[in-house]
């Protein structure tokens, strides 16, 4: 089992690495295309601002690589948002893997959404043995619009896609690495896909 975490400079990847370590899997941080292609599973992380993260991804030379990967790929938080068509944050064009738009929450609610919210309408092997309305930890100001590729939804101001799936690509808005035992179970499910 070879697991790579795409290392393009965006985000707190230590926590993801540690979470897999708790599951007994050594995750390798990598920006080497050959190493990433040769992995069984790939994590595409991301924290921070979308346009600067996308800039870093382009500079790392991995921008073209990600959409061509054939093994299961899991985008987390901003990673998931960058896999969508477009995000309002910094008016940034995404990788177009998920056919949806990323928009900002309005000021009717506190922004960022910070804390534990439920995930519902679960529709993927990624959520095997995860109960409907399980709590996950989220921190975000932008959300992916609900669409055909939604495999989980959450409610904050409106119902949005808190997880997406298209072929071998998966994305989660929440942080499974910070969501207690249920989050660890989702990471375990991903490894076993």
């Amino acid at each position: 089992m070879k697991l790579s975490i795409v290392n393009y400079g965006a985000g707190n990847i230590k926590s993801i690495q540690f979470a897999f370590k708790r599951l007994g899997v050594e995750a390798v941080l990598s920006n080497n295309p050959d190493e990433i292609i040769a992995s069984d599973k790939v994590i595409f992380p991301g924290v921070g601002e979308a346009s600067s993260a996308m800039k870093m991804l382009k500079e790392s030379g991995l921008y073209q690589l990600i959409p061509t990967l054939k093994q299961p790929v899991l985008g987390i938080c901003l990673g998931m948002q960058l896999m969508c068509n477009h995000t309002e944050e910094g008016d940034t064009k995404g990788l177009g893997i998920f056919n949806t738009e990323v928009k900002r929450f309005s000021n009717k609610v506190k922004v960022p959404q910070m804390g534990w919210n439920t995930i519902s309408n679960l529709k993927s092997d990624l959520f095997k043995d995860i109960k409907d309305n399980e709590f996950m930890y989220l921190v975000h100001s932008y959300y992916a619009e609900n669409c055909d590729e939604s495999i989980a939804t959450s409610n904050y101001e409106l119902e949005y896609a808190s997880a997406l799936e298209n072929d071998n690509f998966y994305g989660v808005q929440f942080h499974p690495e910070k969501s207690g035992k249920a989050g660890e179970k989702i990471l375990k499910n991903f490894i076993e896909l």
Partner: protein
Amino acid sequence: MLTKRIVPCLDIKNGRTVKGVNFVDLRDAGDPVVLAKQYADLGADELVFLDIAATLENRRTMHDMVLKVAEQVNIPFTVGGGISSVEDVDDLLHCGADKVSINSSAVKRPELINELSQKFGSQCVVVAIDAKQVDGEWLVHLAGGTIPTEIRLFDWAKEVEKRGAGEILFTSMNHDGTKAGFANEALAHLSDLVNIPIIASGGAGTIQHFVDTFKEGKADAALAASVFHFGEIPILELKEELKNKGIPVRI
């Protein structure tokens, strides 16, 4: 539905918890990693580690501690105390901290908030504000509440939001340590004034105080130390009571 957060706070000196912690069945109640794991299992939603010594020599010990917590604990945590530069934050985030909290350094150089939120994102920038009500006016205090300033709490809260803070941790010096309840009037005003989450701190003594700070104080999260450390308020019991009172919590 987004739930209200319960946040135990651990004071750290030389990599050990201080003030004393009195949990049953703990091998080493002074070990922050053991405690953090215990809190995560008991249902805490987040943790705050405050480096109260925050000297240069302590910094490496703090980094080691943050690494160990990140390695073993599966809920988010914030690290505060003595953070004054982009480099400090970079180091802590690399060790696995999810958020950092800055206080006096932000008052001394408010641009620090802009720099941190631009480089790391607002989501990891917590601005802690210690304030005391003097003659009806809430004034910001520095250095753990010991040094008064002329800065008004509500002006400062607006400013930190504008500069990119992702969250405000508000401690009322009038209430801290009293166990007589949180500063709910000021908290509610803060919550109406800014559009970022507010963590209430200072004054927790009973379960009812938490109910009040979520309802009257409109707080998004509530932080406490001794009531949790000494088992006076078990977290699960607290959350069940909050749920009974119609406050959304993660159980």
